[in-house]
């Protein structure tokens, strides 16, 4: 019997959360160290899973299966493929850096970390689940702590509104998908929620065409797809720093990933039928997100809308249904995850010191916060797809993937919007970090602490590392894509 890596990864955060809840409210330091320890354990294990994943063999590895409810064919079935292994790693990274960044949370840290870790367990669970029922189970677990985290620790002005909006949107999406999943379960006639079995079921083309859209769109709401992206910038802005990181960095991938795993992989004919629509919506995401981001004056809204734009690229990669496009989308999920995590961490650090996120009021921060400035510059380069950074490795294949299809013009429009992205991120960098620092900030900007520095460097290392050595990630994703293509080819 092999060591059950995935279940340990999935349940570490929730166990940590239960341990934390037994502490007294005053034991704030103990809470933080416990949280960090749990984060490091999850990170180490997910890194181990990622590194030892045998990409030449491909397929699902680290399989574990425990019968959970044989009556309906529900099992606790974990496994990762080349698509999900990077995302498990990403979750570990964001979880650990999120804890480091949140060291300063002083209002009820016990509850904060407990809820954050329940969320983390849900996220790990979705990425690792090969059982449709349990996927939903973990998916919902990832949704509800969000409400509390944003509403309690969020930005005072908009938190109630944003938290409720976000929760209702996401819940709506998940229940719509759930109905689709139940219909699939009963029509398959296999009496099992095991996705490995459901993958082999050939649903009738009409069935797939009807049900693909609700299932895909239900999940894609969490991926921020137009016209259901509206919750996302509001949610990002209202959330406290670590939650924004989690949210934009990991949760939106959760939506995209589930849309891929349940929508495209279980209903491939439907995916082919609706691909043009998804492509169109994703294009709107990319262009519209970029333009809206470019006119924002709130630092956090800029990042929020840029996430909408970047998630559009992921969806577009899916919609190409080509090897290049899917590979690009897979890398983009990881790359965007670390990038936005870094962006939100940086915004949080600036805001904690300047107490404003209004871009025109900021300036010259690079002198006081050099590492934050460097981090944001690296993030910007990733964001605009500069070669040598992970963004390029992700975006270039997506455009290549589109170019081969009959929608080449889409690639041109989307590529042009990258220019818009470049313009606004560079403008933000210049305004916030360069130029003259307003007088009221002189001498008031305290430097960031060691944990903050470690987190920033850690996140940057991934972006540069993958940019310079794509071989650190691309082969994993390609082995995952191979499996998806087999399914699509058989449809």
């Amino acid at each position: 019997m092999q060591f059950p890596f995935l279940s340990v990864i999935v349940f570490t955060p929730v166990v940590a959360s239960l341990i934390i809840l037994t502490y007294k409210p005053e034991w704030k330091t103990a809470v933080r160290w416990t949280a960090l320890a749990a984060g490091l354990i999850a990170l180490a294990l997910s890194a181990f899973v990622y590194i030892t994943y045998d990409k030449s063999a491909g397929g699902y590895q680290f399989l574990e299966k425990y019968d959970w409810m044989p009556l309906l064919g529900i099992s606790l079935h974990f496994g990762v493929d080349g698509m999900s292994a990077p995302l498990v790693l990403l979750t570990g990274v964001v979880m650990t850096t999120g804890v480091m960044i949140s060291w300063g949370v002083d209002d009820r840290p016990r509850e904060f970390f407990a809820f954050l870790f329940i969320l983390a367990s849900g996220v790990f669970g979705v990425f690792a689940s090969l059982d449709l029922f349990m996927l939903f189970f973990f998916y919902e677990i990832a949704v509800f702590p969000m409400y509390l985290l944003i509403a309690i620790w969020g930005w005072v002005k908009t938190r109630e509104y944003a938290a409720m909006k976000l929760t209702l949107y996401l819940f709506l999406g998940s229940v719509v998908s759930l109905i689709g999943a139940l219909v699939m379960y009963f029509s398959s006639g296999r009496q099992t929620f095991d996705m490995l079995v459901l993958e082999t079921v050939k649903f009738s083309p009409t069935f797939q065409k009807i049900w693909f859209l609700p299932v895909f769109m239900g999940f894609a709401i969490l991926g921020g797809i137009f016209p259901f992206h509206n919750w996302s910038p509001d949610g990002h802005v209202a959330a406290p720093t670590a939650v924004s990181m989690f949210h934009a960095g990991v949760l939106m991938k959760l939506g995209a990933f589930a849309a891929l795993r349940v929508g495209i992989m279980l209903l491939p004919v439907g995916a082919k039928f609706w691909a043009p629509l998804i492509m169109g919506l994703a294009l709107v995401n990319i262009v519209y997100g970029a333009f809206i981001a470019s006119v924002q004056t709130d630092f956090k809204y800029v990042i929020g809308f840029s996430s909408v734009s970047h998630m559009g690229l992921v969806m577009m990669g899916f919609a190409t249904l080509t090897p290049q496009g899917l590979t690009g989308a897979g890398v983009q999920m990881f790359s965007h995850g670390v990038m936005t995590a870094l962006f939100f961490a940086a915004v949080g650090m600036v805001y904690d010191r300047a107490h404003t996120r209004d871009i025109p009021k900021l300036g010259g921060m690079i002198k006081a916060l050099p590492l934050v400035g460097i981090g944001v510059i690296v993030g910007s380069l990733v964001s605009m797809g500069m070669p040598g950074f992970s963004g390029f490795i992700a975006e270039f294949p997506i455009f290549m993937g589109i170019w081969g299809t009959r929608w080449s013009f889409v690639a041109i429009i989307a590529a042009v919007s990258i220019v818009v992205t470049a313009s606004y991120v560079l403008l933000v960098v210049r305004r916030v970090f360069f130029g003259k620092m307003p007088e009221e900030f002189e001498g008031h900007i305290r430097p960031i602490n060691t944990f903050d520095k470690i987190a920033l460097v850690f996140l940057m290392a991934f972006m540069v590392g993958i940019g310079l050595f794509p071989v650190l990630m691309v082969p994993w994703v390609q082995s995952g894509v191979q499996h998806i293509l087999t399914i699509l080819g058989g449809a």
Partner: protein
Amino acid sequence: MTGVAPILPEILLLALGVLVLIVDPFLKRDESRRRFLGWFTASGLLVTLVLSLLFARPAAPLLVYGGMIRFDWLGFLFELFFLLAAGVSALFFMDAEQLNYRAEAYLLLLAATLGMCLMASAADLVMLYLSIETTSIPLYILAGFLKEDEKSTESGFKYLLFGALTSAVMLYGFSLIYGFAGKTGLYDLGGYFTSFNALSIGVTFLVLAGLAFKVSLFPFHFWAPDVYEGAPTPVAGFLSTASKAAGFAVILRLFTAVFNADAINPNWSLILAILATLTMTVGNLIALTQKNAKRLLAYSSIAHAGYAMVGVVAFSQFGMASAVFYLIAYLLTNLGAFAVVGLVGRVTGSDDFSAYYGLSRRNPGLALAMLVTFLSLSGMPPFAGFVAKVFVFAAAVQSGWVWLAIAGVLNSIVGLYYYLNVLKYVYLYRTEAQDEDKHPIAVPRPFLVGLIVLVIGILLLGTVFGPWFGFAAHAAANLF
């Protein structure tokens, strides 16, 4: 002859009730009554539960005592949970003023529980009617137990009037059944009322009226909010859970035995589906506008009757099982929710949302318990409410009621909104003085025990749902 096993829980309940009465005069002071009676009742119920589990497990379904009682898993499973609910409620009674030192309150609780246990296993119209009345009459009194409180008196009286009316209507339905079929055994009546004509429609509606009242199904839901609001909170909790589950047990039995599922006309399912949808929607929409936690729970419990009905509408073994599972999950969850509301109400003197300001700082553990119960009500994992909802909707989808499942999930979104809205007061808002640390809420020990039992139950049902659903499926299988 089968011995006493089929009615072992009932016998023990009766004995316990008598013991409570005997013990009572020996307790000199109200204070010692207050401390003793609740623990005594609760431990007695625990013993009953254990003994029933050991000695009263049914084998194959069997009609006993001249066909009055059907000894099967459906009745048994419900009995166990009624005993649990009564035990926990007895602990909560200890924290309710004017209830806690009165032996009568505990006795009435036991009497109502006895009636419910019989309701769940009654297999004859006469037995059924008697058991329903045995349940209702103690509950009328309990609802109006606070004599000096106008609202409680109003609540008890309102409950009595509505209850008497609908049970008279139901009795008329029973007499029609007997008149036309010449039989009173539920399992002899199968096939008589399955065609869709004026007679069977009339009879079913008359019978359904009484049961719809019990489970607060639309359009017989009007009494629920007023009664729950006025009744002492632990009583309201018991009313909204155990009494409702008992009503559903009868509905499940009637619709499988008398108004046969196999032969039933599809029009019936349609009517019930519409009723379920209306119940969910009305309950949820009115709950949206509430500013009082007790009334909110009252309306939400109407909505939950609708969800459970979705499982019944599916008219399949899986559907019935999912309805049973839903009721168990709901019973544990709503008891917990009412308990928290009751405690906060007693300490702050109000059930309005404003009483919940800063609760998470006044008592973090209590706030967490409230979070668990409310999220379970809204259908979030890893709590019982999630799997329960998924199973009833799955049953609806399986039987081709996709629109009903969609109506259900849309309703649960509305539900999520108002449950979260309450949690906002608990976790987000603070009292004006922001000095919550100086006003902690103490949780009495019996209360703590009851609440821990419920929260553990909610988590167990929500995570290790396989075996629990297995029991529910077994119970449902016995019906067919």
